[in-house]
């Protein structure tokens, strides 16, 4: 009862405040501004400051796109210009001539991203859900098992030895997938999410109806937790798409090099691919000089484009995901 009273009071107060404010604004509209608003000068300064920051964050990408369309002669003569003297599509024609490797790497990245994300989502949600249930007798033990890995890490070298000597994953596609498929941090986030969003009463009624725990998980929990699961899936997808480190460690076979890793060694690769291409390949002879610099930038554009294009759509899920589960209960 007292809670209700307090609440009522709060509502009354704020509405009074609103009325007062409203009348104030009405009386002296020309002389007084809304007291909550910034002065126009300060607002302009903030708009400009943030504008510079926002521009600085996307300008490099625009700049790289421009360079990729600059003719190689222009780059050699004038450097990377914001408005180049001579435009050219040579870089993209050139990349097209090595499309096998590009498509291959794109394929590897897409495969790894999809398979990896599916595996991660299942492992993480299963684990997190089990340790969020009070019926699970050993939940504390398994929570600690995951949490401790956040505090103390096995280190790069032992991990490398485990992956190469114990699992023998070097130069296999699984070396790109498995090492990234779990993350204790996501387990803790999902656990908090389940603790907050899944109420025991729904589960009780399902149990009374005779549903098994697995059936409850797939038919009730999974749909109910879709926002949380989508967040984990998004984090995981981005993690796989942008990964180059595992490839740097474990992959030498050019057939298994993902996009980011291809880009990383692009200088060496441009040379390598050029040398390995059929000498009789006439496509190449159309280039008087190899568009080395612009081709690099064209590769950057090609690798970034999927993220840049989908970014405005997934951004809001990402932002809502940030607040979905604190680390603490």
């Amino acid at each position: 009862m007292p809670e209700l009273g307090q609440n009522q009071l709060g509502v009354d107060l704020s509405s009074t405040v609103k009325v007062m404010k409203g009348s104030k604004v009405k009386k002296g509209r020309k002389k007084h501004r809304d007291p909550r608003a910034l002065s126009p000068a300060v607002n302009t300064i903030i708009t400009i400051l943030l504008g510079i920051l926002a521009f600085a964050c996307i300008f490099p990408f625009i700049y790289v796109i421009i360079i990729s369309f600059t003719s190689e002669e222009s780059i050699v003569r004038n450097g990377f210009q914001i408005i180049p003297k001579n435009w050219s599509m040579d870089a993209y024609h050139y990349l097209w001539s090595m499309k096998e490797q590009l498509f291959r790497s794109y394929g590897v990245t897409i495969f790894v991203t999809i398979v990896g994300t599916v595996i991660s989502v299942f492992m993480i949600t299963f684990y997190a859900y089990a340790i969020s249930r009070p019926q699970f007798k050993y939940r504390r033990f398994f929570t600690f098992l995951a949490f401790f890995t956040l505090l103390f890490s096995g280190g790069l070298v032992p991990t490398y030895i485990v992956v190469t000597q114990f699992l023998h994953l070097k130069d296999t596609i699984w070396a790109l997938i498995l090492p990234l498929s779990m993350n204790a941090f996501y387990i803790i986030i999902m656990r908090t999410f389940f603790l907050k969003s899944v109420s025991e009463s729904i589960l009780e009624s399902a149990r009374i109806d005779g549903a098994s725990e697995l059936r409850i998980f797939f038919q009730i929990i999974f749909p109910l937790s879709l926002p949380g699961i989508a967040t984990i899936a998004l984090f995981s997808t981005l993690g796989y798409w942008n990964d180059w480190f595992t490839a740097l460690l474990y992959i030498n076979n050019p057939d298994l090099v993902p996009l980011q890793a291809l880009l990383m060694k692009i200088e060496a690769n441009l040379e390598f691919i050029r040398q390995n291409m059929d000498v009789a390949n006439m496509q190449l002879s159309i280039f008087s000089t190899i568009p080395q610099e612009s081709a690099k930038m064209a590769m950057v554009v090609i690798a970034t484009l999927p993220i840049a294009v989908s970014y405005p759509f997934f951004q809001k899920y990402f932002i809502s995901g940030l607040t979905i589960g604190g680390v603490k209960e």
Partner: protein
Amino acid sequence: MKKFARDIYKNRVWLLMVLPGTIWLLIFSYLPMFGQVLAFKKFRIDPDGFFASVMNSEWVGWSNFKYLFSTDDAWVITRNTLVYNIIFIVVGLLAAVGTAILLSELMNKRLSKVYQTSILFPHFISWVIGSYFVFTFLSTEHGLLNHVLGWFHIDAVSWYSESKYWPFILVFMSLWKGVGYGSIVYLASIVAIDRTYYEAAMIDGATKWKQIKHVTLPMLKPLMIILTIMNIGRIFNSDFGLFYQVPRDSGALYSVTNVIDTFVYRGLMNLGDIGMSTAAGLYQSFVGFILVLITNYIVRKVDEESALF
């Protein structure tokens, strides 16, 4: 024993659910922890597999550590890792909170959304791509920066071999990539603050500045503390890509770009010195672990609610 078997049976569904994750944790987290003993051994591959290799390698006591700390490298990588991380934590916190407050105060909300979208963009870019972004500015022959210096008749700088500029470049790049994420986290927290606090402050005659100082910042304090503890706990770890890709692995810059992570990586991949790089890795894990415990202990003393565990 019988009771244990019954408990296992009773919890079988849950155990089944944690099974894949547990196997992963055991192989990819706990097995490497056990592998850390290689820091005290001289690693030799045994034909009988991984365990035999680890067990049968000869004990060498502290000699890997002695070797590590006898070189200048140990001091340089520790200094670089700590100093960069301290700067990143302080500057990153100020920039993120500052940007979040400015974004929340911006009168044009549509513009605020557009700004958020652009500021967050670098977060989704890998450092491989980031390093090309940097290259377009710093390339000695073609880069924008040398071009601009040319207008002022200043000689071109060979950026990738001049170490004195890199502390600034690395801090700048770390901010470039991180400020968006940080500010969005704080912005979400600012938006959640009850508006009536501000109304009450205004009735008391608080200026905008005073509202920020006495309402917004105190409300953000718990989040600032928890994120800072987590960062301090990771103060011995660095963003590998920032220190490896962005300087393009340039040897001339190692004195200011080599951190524990890059040192361990190069020790393993370039030198093949398993003993010493494992020792460096264990040094990193161990000190990091102690730091989390200490920070958490202090926070717990000061403000129990904000402690991580």
